[in-house]
């Protein structure tokens, strides 16, 4: 299966290890992975700030990079959701194909690859951070507001990892407060939301906080480091790819 790897701009620049883990994991699971070299960004930073009108260039570049692959996979629920909901181009046939064939990493592994076993080992106490766009936008897990039966694609995979003890914070799916440019334009509330998530994970005595979006983890990591906390953040791809 030919998979186009979409690595969001800030992961490319600041968290290459997450991208490496994603690539290696997909290869382990039998995918032929290509990384189109001229990719940049999905355009979400502009669109969420009200400047969707400026994201044409990003859209065009995205279609030029990913127009020829069967599936597109990315280790970011938020960027995937943005592409799914907002990607348009002069070549609307290709744009439509991309919107329908782009997947967040864990949903791709569970729904398309239908993986039943993961041979990873991560003997640590890990807290699950559910990122909103993956959850409420891509339906990666059940939502506390709805009365539907509970499920979680990321937790399903993490529970296959040897030695891993998974815990949930008391408020299972409250937002961490990153929110794109919200994190600087509403700095006070953003940080308070992040601190509160961290407090709930700390009560569970976790060593790591994991999730499917590096943006949320970057925000939590920034607060943890400022607090001098021993708790680390780690992307789910890094855990699923660990030996």
């Amino acid at each position, binding site marked *: 299966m030919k998979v186009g790897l979409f690595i969001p*701009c800030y992961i490319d620049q600041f968290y*290459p290890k997450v991208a490496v883990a994603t690539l290696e994991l997909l290869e382990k699971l039998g995918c032929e992975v290509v990384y189109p070299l001229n990719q940049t960004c999905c355009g979400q930073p502009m669109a969420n700030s009200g400047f969707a009108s400026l994201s044409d260039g990003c859209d065009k570049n995205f279609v030029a990079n990913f127009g020829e692959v069967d599936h597109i996979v990315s280790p970011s629920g938020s960027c995937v959701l943005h592409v799914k909901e907002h990607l348009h181009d002069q070549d609307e046939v290709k744009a439509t194909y991309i919107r329908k064939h782009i997947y967040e990493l864990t949903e791709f592994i569970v729904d398309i690859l239908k993986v039943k076993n993961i041979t990873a080992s991560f003997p640590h106490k890990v807290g699950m951070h559910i990122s909103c766009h993956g959850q409420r936008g891509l339906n990666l897990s059940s939502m506390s*507001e709805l009365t539907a039966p509970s499920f979680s694609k990321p937790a399903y995979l993490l529970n296959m990892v040897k030695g891993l003890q998974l815990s949930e914070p008391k408020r299972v799916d409250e937002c961490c407060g990153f929110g794109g440019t919200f994190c600087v334009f509403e700095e006070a509330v*953003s940080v308070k939301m992040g601190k*509160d998530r961290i407090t709930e994970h700390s009560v569970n005595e976790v060593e790591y906080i994991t999730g499917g979006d590096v943006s949320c983890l970057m925000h939590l990591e*920034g607060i943890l480091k400022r607090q001098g906390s021993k708790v680390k953040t780690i992307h789910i791809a890094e855990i699923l790819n660990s030996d």
Partner: protein
Amino acid sequence: MNPKNFNRLFFVPIQGASLSHSAAAEIFNKDESRTDWHDETLWFVREKRDKAVRQIAEWEQLRSLGSSIKDHTLSNLDNYLAEFEKNAQANGIKVHWAFDAEEHNEIILKIIREQKVEQVVKSKSMLTEECHLNDFLAKRGVEVVDTDLGERIVQFRNEPPSHIVLPAIHLKKQDVSETFHEHLGTEKGNNDPQYLTEAARQHLRTKFIHSQLAITGVNFAIASTGGFVVCTNEGNADMGAHAAKIHIACMGIEKIIPNAEHLGVFLRLLARSATGQPITTYSSHFHQPRVGQQMHIIIVDNGRTKQLGRPDFRSSLKCIRCAACFNTCPVYRRSGGHSYHTAVAGPIGSILNPNLDMKANADLPFASTLCGSCSNVCPVKIDIHVQLYKWRQELVSEGYTASGKKVAMKGMAFVLSHPSIYRVAGKMGRWMMRAFPFIMNNKSLNPWYKQREMPEAPKQSFRDWYKKNKQ
């Protein structure tokens, strides 16, 4: 750059005296333990709501039904409003129409003057808050006594309500005790809720007995019967309406429902969503004036038809004012209702208020992480977070954005549209962060750094690694 210039560049100044949401929220967060208390108090209400809705197997279907009835009604609003007017008049109710807040207030003033009324009581009505009725009447020498306990507390303090269902939720019992000591002469330092409530009860009883005119809101107006329903937990709408010789009920045009049987959907949705109660303590049905009483209904537009004409935002008029979106909103819980500087705060307020005044409320659609929890709890399935996103686009295209933000976004869009420039910029940026960390590590210029460390800047990007290792 000094921080003041930074703020001028990146934040739109809000018109009038009020601070922007982010500035007010920053002040709110200065007292962290109080912010925690506010957050936990409202989360408690959200949890009560969760428990209540899980007791109904068909909850999600009920939401869909409520949503469909409202959609249908909004699409046939002209007919239902006309039907309601005809039936209400046949019941002996006087129906008035108000184009805007001013006309609404003038109608009430006219009734007060014609009937030579001196004592007015009012039960909770967010519409009258939206129209600033109390201020309007006070300036003309008429005092209105709010009879909802929470509203009376904030009225004593000269504050607007901070929440549409729980108007004084931002106050602790100590604050109430001080306020009552000052205004009702209760014992100083006595914070016992029962003692304080009893004092309010005695005080309000006198007001009810002497009132000549009672104003109430309307939760649901039934087109086919010409009657309306007012929901309260304190019975204060009944106390007011039954004691006074004149009852004025104020409603926005969107309060119409086609038939009485639809109350079976909405009353179940409303109380569970609002407070987790199976039903509001008092669901009072008013159909006609009693002998010797006058009953008026004022049907108000005040921007609603304009919102109805906006395809992206018309469904916001489905709102039944339960405030579930307030209680679930992680931003509302940590910024308090007053940060929204509008009568209706919270996520729903952030999609309603830009319609009333885009310039004054341009900050509100940005007071959200777009987490989507609001849309999930909404009993009539308004896609609130989607509309927040759409309002952002609308505000920017109408020019309500700070110049610095516009320049930054244009620059960012340019870089991200050109792969080679993006790569050079990324490399330079990371090099700068490693070589001159003090540029980014500046608390007054970089809001990220105020309370968070910057991510570490690696020497190579993923693309660099990929080219080296995979090609």
